[in-house]
């Protein structure tokens, strides 16, 4: 039995230290906070119930991260299959998002704008993009995991990146964060 899990108090400490990070990881893949929280809860509940039989040899945070990611990918895969059932091919690249970006330019925080840009990604491309970007899975691994072709993964990646670049204001993309915030602060409203 793992020393860290011999009582509920240390289990709670583990939960509290890992919860937010794990929810973020699941949220990146699922783009749904409630679902992401459910995934994390299921993983912890499972770990607690099996604490005596499961021997976790690697470190617990890494184990938890992998369990949460796997769980989230399974859900994403189901969604993905539903999404593509309705469309012959993948959704078309959304048109020029520059108009939206202009409104986003004055709509507050940088982080808020990034959230919006990510949220506006087509659902099927978002998950693929996040798995590559944050789980550092190769195209081949993603393709195998989702049972799609590497070509489709390439297309999703291209789509997602193009969408993000078009959606984010140019000033942000130029890395002029400080100037940008200053400029927004000077706007007359």
């Amino acid at each position, binding site marked *: 039995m793992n*020393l*860290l899990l*011999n*009582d*509920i*108090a*240390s289990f*709670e*400490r*583990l*939960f*509290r230290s890992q*919860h*937010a990070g794990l*929810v*973020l990881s699941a*949220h*990146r893949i699922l783009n749904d*906070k409630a679902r*992401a*929280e459910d995934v*994390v*809860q299921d993983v*912890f*509940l499972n770990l*607690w*119930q099996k604490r005596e039989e499961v021997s976790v040899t690697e470190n617990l945070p890494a184990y938890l991260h992998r369990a949460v990611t796997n769980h989230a990918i399974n859900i994403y895969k189901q969604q993905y299959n539903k999404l593509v059932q309705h469309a012959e091919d993948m959704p078309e*690249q959304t048109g020029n998002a520059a108009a939206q970006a202009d409104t986003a330019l004055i709509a507050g925080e*940088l*982080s808020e704008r*990034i*959230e919006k*840009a*990510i949220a506006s990604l087509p659902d099927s491309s978002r998950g693929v*993009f*996040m798995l*590559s*970007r*944050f789980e*550092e899975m*190769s*195209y081949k691994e993603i393709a195998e995991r989702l049972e799609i072709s590497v070509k489709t993964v*390439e*297309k999703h*990646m*291209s*789509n*997602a*990146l*193009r969408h*993000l*670049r078009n959606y*984010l204001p*140019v000033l*942000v*993309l*130029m*890395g002029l964060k400080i100037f940008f915030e200053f400029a927004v602060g000077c706007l007359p409203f």
Partner: protein
Amino acid sequence: MNTEKQYELIAKSLSGNISDQEKAMLEQWLGENAENATVYAQAKRAWELTAEQTVVADTDAAWQKLSSLIAEGEKTEVIRISPVGWFTRIAAAVAVLVGIGFLFSTFFDKQPQMKTIASANEMLKVVLPDSSVVWLNKGSQIAYLENFEGDKREVKLTGEAFFDVVHKEDKPFVIEANKTTITDIGTSFNVRAYSNEPQVEVSVATGVVGFSSTKKEQVILNAGYHAVFDLKSATIHSEQNKSANYMAWKTGQLMFENNTLGEVAATLSRYYNTNIVTDSAAATILFTGNFNHAGIGDAMRILETSTGVEVSKQQNGYNMSAR
């Protein structure tokens, strides 16, 4: 090269999925004109910026939910594996009908019950059957036989607690905490034994305490002394308390007098359960001052203004660096 192909190559390059041949194609395209280079730079920035995404998770609420699910799961487990068999099953059936199942099954169970009290995210004051008082720090747990049956008053501790013990000559008060034993000789003292920390610490406020590991001989600690048992080397080291900060979790008071910021950071990290680090230049700067129930933000601001270091918020704590 069409737009889709451009982004395909850029994405491959950023994600580390690009082949040598594709890399050559991308480089050629980048060299064609300044516009292409800008597209690449902006796409790269967009890629990097996705790391800024955050999600606000309500960990407290999530823990409440999870711990009630755990409690539910364990209740059913007890009924299933109970050695009392059919009787408990009837009791459980009665419980379903009239809701007194719990009373019923404990009434017929003559075995002394282990009583467990755990604090979650709050400090908890517990009065034991012998009138001794225990303050449990967050995330801690004590267990003892109901009514202290037997010739000793034995308490198992995980986590941190302050004990104010009613002394009884004929029935010693003994605490077991992570391979160590602490015996009261009439006194109040603090024990810290979280299972994810490599040591057990005992600090004595009043009276005398015996502190021993399972093998080694006992160390007698007087008021104002503090001992640390290192689990790895299985040795006990004792020294005089430099401050009363070991009690801060209970009193809310932190006092520093010519302490280095390195020491201050260690104490605050522990008190706020976060990770405060200093660079080597800041670590030796001296600080004198008191915090009274200060929030972590206020404490960091006070350190910043009084010592002139620069405090920056990190993902998992704070960083202090000399300017």
